[in-house]
């Protein structure tokens, strides 16, 4: 299947490449991306780190970017106080104020300015990041966010809304976040779509967190039910940088996120928290590689996933501690909840250690709802369905409670409750 699909990609690229904006990605770089992708081939489920991804959806989509832009913007979530919002529809920036915050530069690369290649750097070169090449070949817009050294903390919200069907084309969200030394920034990234959209969304996000800078990155994937969402996030952390990445995935038919964080400077810290809630035929898969290359670096990883119906939830968390990363500390806590006889949860903690004097701990468990907890709630008069909702809710709270922005946390809690069809039973909590 892979070669037929790569041929299809090459063909579609040939038909549209002349019209793709050079200011976003230079033509030579796009062509190189296509060549590299075709040479490597698309990911396949026989590969260990792709085995839980539903890749068959790629056989039935159009890869070229959506040409006719829908004028309709799907209803957007309530705006959060303090966040400056940028809205993209089908991959193109539709609204958002440029440079609306002191100490912050936000710019769409479709507008004239220095070319993207200068800031973006090469596409990550590891097999799990292949779909970023697809983004590089086809992206029609890219947002560059720069938080300048020692600037006051700022908050940005990026909404990527898909409006069209898969046969109409794909969209390629592309973002580069740069934090200079000691900058502080919150980025909230939402991926969503009109209910009828059946799009292919393939995003590429890159974050460079400078010395002693702090990036809090919330990513919410609540795409429309028929969307195929693929994503590659790469981040590089300088000395003493702190990166808090928190993702919540509830939407899409197929969602695959590949995350690669390189702790390149001494004392850099990554806190990765991810929650996934999948039902019906949904498949949610995340591969996260945390690579410790400098001494005294630290990773804390928390995953909570619930699979109901015939859904599959997978989390593959790899922590690699390289030779020069002595004194590193990593902790993984991965838990999955099976909510139904046909649901599937696959958790895979991996440690690769090339040095001594490191501390690594990990735990991974998957199981059904705790019957002791359930009976305890029933014995207090709580209805069985409410008790189940409550325990599922509590399970995800391990991740959700880490959201420092209270308004955002409430929004996400409401969204999770509605996904669980528990908005009525849990109303006291919302």
């Amino acid at each position, binding site marked *: 299947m892979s070669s037929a699909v790569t041929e299809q990609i090459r063909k579609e690229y040939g038909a549209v490449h002349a019209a793709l904006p050079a200011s976003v990605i230079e033509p030579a770089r796009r062509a190189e991306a296509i060549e590299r992708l075709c040479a490597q081939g698309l990911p396949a489920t026989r590969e260990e780190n792709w085995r839980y991804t539903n890749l068959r959806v790629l056989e039935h989509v159009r890869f070229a970017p959506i040409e006719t832009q829908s004028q309709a913007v799907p209803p957007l979530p309530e705006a959060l106080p303090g966040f400056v919002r940028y809205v993209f529809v089908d991959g193109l920036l539709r609204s958002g104020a440029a440079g609306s915050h002191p100490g912050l530069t936000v710019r769409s690369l479709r507008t004239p300015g220095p070319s993207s290649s200068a800031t973006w750097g090469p596409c990550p070169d590891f097999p799990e990041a292949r779909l970023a090449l697809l983004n590089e070949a086809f992206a029609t817009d890219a947002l560059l966010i720069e938080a300048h050294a020692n600037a006051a903390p700022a908050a940005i919200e990026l909404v990527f809304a898909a409006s069209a069907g898969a046969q109409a084309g794909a969209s390629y969200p592309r973002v580069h976040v740069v934090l200079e030394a000691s900058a502080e920034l919150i980025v909230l990234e939402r991926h969503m779509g009109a209910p009828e959209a059946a799009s292919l969304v393939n995003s590429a996000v890159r974050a460079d967190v400078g010395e002693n800078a702090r990036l809090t990155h919330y990513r919410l994937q609540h795409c429309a039910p028929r969307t195929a969402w693929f994503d590659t996030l790469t981040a590089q952390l300088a000395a003493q940088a702190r990166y808090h990445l928190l993702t919540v995935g509830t939407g899409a038919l197929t969602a695959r996120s590949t995350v690669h964080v390189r702790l390149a400077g001494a004392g850099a810290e990554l806190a990765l928290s991810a929650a996934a809630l999948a039902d019906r035929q949904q498949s949610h898969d995340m591969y996260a590689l945390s690579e410790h290359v400098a001494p005294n670096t630290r990773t804390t990883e928390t995953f909570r996933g619930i699979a109901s119906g015939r859904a599959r939830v997978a989390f593959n968390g790899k922590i690699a501690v390289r030779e020069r990363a002595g004194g590193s500390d990593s902790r993984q806590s991965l838990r999955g909840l099976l909510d139904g006889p046909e649901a599937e949860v696959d958790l895979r903690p991996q440690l690769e250690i090339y040095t001594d004097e490191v501390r690594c701990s990990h735990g991974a468990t998957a199981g059904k709802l705790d019957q002791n907890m359930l009976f305890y709630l029933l014995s207090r*008069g709580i209805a069985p369905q409410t008790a189940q909702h409550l325990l599922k809710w509590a399970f995800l709270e391990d991740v959700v409670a880490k959201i420092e922005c209270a308004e955002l946390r409430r929004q996400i809690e409401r969204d999770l409750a509605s996904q669980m069809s528990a908005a009525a039973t849990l109303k006291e909590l919302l």
Partner: protein
Amino acid sequence: MLKIENLHATVDGKEILKGLELEVPAGEVHAVMGPNGSGKSTLAYVLAGRPGYAVTAGRISFQGQDLLALSPEERARAGVFLGFQYPVEIPGVNNVYLLKAAINAARKQRGEPEVDAFEFLTLVREKMRLMRMDESMLSRGVNEGFSGGEKKRNEILQMLVLEPRLAVLDETDSGLDIDALKIVAHGVNTLRGPQRSLVLVTHYQRLLEHIVPDRVHVLVNGRIVRSGDRTLALELERRGYDWLIGEAA
């Protein structure tokens, strides 16, 4: 209030209760004592309707209705409360939510409106003072990180807030130091009244010094082998259970 006739129950296919008879009239406190493995906790779980505890014969009538026909949550709403020997921790569900949800479930059953938020908090605070519990506990997860003693106090707090008709306290005294035991006993005693019954499942006489029972029953090998007034507990303290085990055999 509670009438148990010829109760047989199995756990994992093994018969634990073997024809148990017990009657607890309204307003009385009954202690069920017995050696390890005699079936005390099984009796408590059967009353609360725990899955896996199968009743194979007999009847349990509670306020004139067939208790065995009710699901665990229906029993709770009807006024049966089980104080757990080992209360579970439920991180992510906070105590105040649980209390409120439990109160409202019972009120809904009785056709009453949901509890007023102010009235509810006033009630909870009053009961917490009685149990000498810190208010910060309310926003914590249910029993999360609580010591053994705190968990037991939390059980009694829930009981005081819910005001059940029948409370079954399973080894509420285990793991308590003497001060905590007094607090727990005081809490339980405030709930005594003509409309309420209590079943204290316990191993030791110690608790009964603080919560004086109307009747004491000895459970051996799945049956009540002897009943008496509180002096029976004192006799057990002196002589142990062996003489009754011998008699039962």
